[in-house]
């Protein structure tokens, strides 16, 4: 029940914020913070009362009939992985509300309505254990995100919003077809027609069918992640969205793709996933290098950061398809660290835009002198992005590469080149924006107290992740074991197969 409350709090908070928006600017913000705070308390309570790393099952498992005629249930459950991602959701939620404090001053009520509904949809995605319900939330978060980009975005927002919606909707529908096909295959073989995740696990089907169904799921998740040939929507959506939108996109929406891979694709289709693994890893490496190269070529700061996301998400898919615990730990670290570091870079880009009304890095330069705090923050997160030891991203990428090394040495070597490329684009941000020739016509103020607090929290978190990652790894461990078990068990050829990759 508590899990349902978490979603309902966000939903009703959103409605309340929307209604009160007419009266005052402040009320929606406070309501949003309250709703997020309430959820945070619930989460902390769950964490406190249920933590038991040895436990392999779900911490809380909540099930209700929804449309029993069609085998649809309201099945929510939480485990370590969901818990970590929910914490991330709430964190990003807080950050999004806080950074919009000054940026959004029109239609505040509706803005926060959308914000909270996106978060509700994402929380639903992280909690659903019924495939229909999962799809329901998966689609539900698109609409408010569409409005967020469409109404509060930059110049080219309408185009970007369309593109975002159509890409994700089209790929989501392919997943939906797969879900339905899985449902019927399971129903025909066992006689119980259900969308329940636990029951659909281990549905027996022929290899080509499994591969086809997996392809449907992959379509949705790889577009969200995004993986290189399907990444086209991302730079537009990220760069045109308002800062809060970009932060949520980078910090959470992309992660739903990674979560989907770990929670659904691998457990539902272990055999097909193993045969897809080589392609998955190659896609990952391509993403790492291609994203980094394009990031280097951008002049629009937000677009640049958007492409670094493509590059970082390449590590995620690489790690997922390496099929071992170390890489998986890295993937989860990467999910969190990337959300924080890239989110912070988007926030910085947003703060710069508020001050000088441009995202073009050619028009910036030497800002460190006027805004040293901002410069320092930019430096820290650029370093995080390039994977400096001591910061969260380093741990993540190191673990992923270590894990991948076991399966394919050559791919790991190529992926390592991505780190070099990351250094190039990250340093370029610092060089072009904060150092370099000072453009004297620009007069900017340094970070305000509110902005300092937001960025300081993020800095603390990213350093904490870099120095003490053990807590998160412990929390995620049972989920990882649960995901990897069927793959390790059912495929004795596993290691051979992967070794066949050059």
């Amino acid at each position: 029940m508590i899990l349902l409350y978490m979603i309902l709090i966000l939903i009703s908070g959103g409605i309340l914020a929307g209604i009160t928006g007419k009266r005052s600017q402040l009320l929606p913000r406070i309501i949003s913070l309250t709703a997020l705070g309430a959820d945070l308390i619930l989460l902390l309570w769950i964490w406190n009362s249920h933590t038991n790393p040895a436990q392999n099952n779900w911490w809380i498992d909540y099930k209700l009939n929804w449309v029993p005629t069609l085998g649809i249930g309201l099945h929510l459950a939480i485990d370590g992985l969901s818990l970590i991602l929910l914490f991330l959701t709430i964190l990003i939620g807080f950050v999004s509300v806080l950074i919009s404090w000054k940026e959004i001053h029109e239609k505040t009520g509706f803005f926060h309505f959308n914000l909270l509904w996106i978060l509700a949809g994402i929380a639903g995605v992280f909690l659903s254990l019924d495939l229909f319900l999962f799809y329901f939330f998966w689609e539900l978060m698109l609409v408010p995100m569409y409005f967020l980009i469409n109404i509060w975005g930059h110049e080219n927002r309408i185009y970007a919003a369309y593109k975002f919606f159509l890409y994700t909707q089209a790929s989501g529908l392919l997943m939906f077809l797969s879900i339905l096909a899985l449902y019927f295959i399971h129903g025909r073989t066992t006689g119980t027609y259900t969308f329940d995740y636990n029951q659909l696990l281990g549905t027996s089907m022929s290899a080509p069918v499994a591969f086809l169904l997996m392809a449907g799921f992959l379509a949705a998740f790889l577009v969200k992640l995004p993986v290189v040939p399907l990444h086209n929507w991302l730079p537009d959506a990220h760069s045109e969205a308002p800062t809060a939108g970009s932060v949520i996109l980078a910090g959470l929406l992309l992660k739903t793709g990674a979560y989907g891979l770990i929670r659904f694709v691998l457990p539902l289709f272990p055999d097909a996933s193993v045969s897809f693994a080589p392609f998955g890893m190659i896609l990952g490496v391509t993403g790492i290098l291609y994203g980094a190269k394009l990031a280097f070529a951008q002049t629009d700061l937000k677009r640049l950061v958007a492409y670094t996301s493509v590059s970082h998400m390449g590590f995620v898919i690489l790690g997922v398809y390496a099929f071992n615990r170390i890489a998986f730990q890295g993937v989860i670290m990467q999910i969190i660290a990337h959300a924080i570091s890239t989110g912070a870079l988007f926030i910085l880009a947003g703060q710069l835009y508020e001050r000088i009304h441009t995202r073009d890095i050619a028009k910036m330069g030497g800002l460190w002198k006027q805004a040293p705090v901002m410069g320092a923050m930019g430096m820290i997160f650029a370093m995080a992005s390039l994977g400096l030891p001591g910061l969260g991203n380093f741990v993540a990428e190191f673990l992923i590469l270590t894990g991948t090394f076991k399966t394919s040495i050559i791919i790991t070597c190529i992926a390592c080149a991505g780190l070099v490329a990351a250094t190039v684009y990250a340093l370029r941000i610092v060089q072009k924006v904060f150092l370099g020739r000072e453009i004297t016509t620009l007069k900017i103020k340094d970070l305000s107290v509110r902005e300092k607090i937001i960025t300081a929290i993020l800095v603390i978190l990213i350093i904490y992740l870099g120095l003490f990652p053990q807590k998160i790894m412990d929390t995620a461990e049972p989920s990882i074991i649960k995901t990897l078990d069927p793959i390790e068990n059912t495929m004795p050829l596993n290691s051979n197969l992967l070794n066949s990759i050059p």
Partner: protein
Amino acid sequence: MIREDFLCLTPLMIIAGAPVIMMLFIALKRNFKIIYGISLVAFLIAFISVFFILPSIPDTISPVFIFDGFTVMFFGIIILASLLVTILSHRYLLYQESEREEYYIILFIAVLGSLILSAASNFVTLFLGIETLSISLYVLIAYRRSRRNSVEAAVKYLVLASVSSAFLLFGMGLIYLNTGALEFSKISLLLRSQGYSTPLLLTGFSMMLVGIGFKLALVPFHMWTPDVYEGAPVPVTTFIATVSKGAVMAVLLRFFYAIQGFRNHNFILLITVIAILTMFIGNLLAIRQKNLKRILAYSSIANMGYLLVTLLTGTKDGIYAAVFYVISYIVTTLAAFGIITLFSGKDNDADQLDDYAGLFWKRPWIAIVFTLALLSLAGIPATTGFMAKFYIVYTGIDSGLWILVISLVINSVIGLYYYLRVITKLFSPANNLAFPSVSFEDKLILCLVTIIILWLGINPEGTIHLIALYSGF
């Protein structure tokens, strides 16, 4: 005729009797309020009387009518939708200077035709129903005859509908020639024993399909739709899009399932091709439209394409999905056209996309309803349109109709694009056009349809259960 038969005919008789009473009143004194009142009361009584049929179903008044759960379901849907159209028309008609009263008389006759259609079990009743409906529609479409578009639309509809009726009739004749029967059940029995082998028979069915296809605006018989939708007064457009399509769909479902057309490969091929064409052409043509009525017209074409999928499933679930889809489509369309009706003034209908720029910032609640309706048409979760599409895809996959299902999915994406165009307009910066105020009863209708859209989208279980309980043939 026994007592049960009379009982079953009550809704039909109420709907048929009301115009007579209205005519008497008009003969005595023209008073729009009285006529409006009579219409409301008559529809309400008719709706209530539907519940009294329930104990006596299934009942057949052979050889013309059949009253089973399916009929009753459609009776309910049709009468309720007509009631809403009646209320929506009220304010709209006030703009008209003279002859407002006859509108409702003709509307009742059109509803009568629709009811006959949904209870038809015989070619004669089928044709009677279709003609009663069409002939009233000719008049309704041209009801605001001072507008140029209205007459043009009516003439277009008149000519094409007559041609299509001729096709329908000829098709029926050919089938009669081969089977010697006019009743669906007898035809189906004969077909089961002889098969569909004769070319004449197939020609007959195909010609019938032309006739029905015209009424449902299936491609390639869809050309009239945008013009008629645009030219007709908005409430009439609403009626055509909801009640008239629903009723024709009902009889098509009944007939097609009776003859078990989903077992014949010729039919499967024909319907598959028509369905795919209807979806794609409807959606693709909608993309570039600037007129909201035309967008919705093309969208209705595409929606009928989705509905055709249920014909080929040949399962009970297929019928349920079709009924659910019809309900959800009618509700959603009522919401969308209802809003257009609200904003339509004396001189012209508010059908330009630009009329709605920034509606959200001026009339947030109405814009939310409109957005919900559009999202429902696009099939986004939490709206009834999603559940309806899901149900069709569900039954389609169950029956292995992969080509149709995949083209439905592709079309959902295309459809989403133009619905988003409208939504984007609603949320764009406001212009300085003023919107007229909204009356209490219109607000009530919008509230009602919104609740239904959300309710069926979030908790469809009860409705699906109800449909499954009653909609067997």
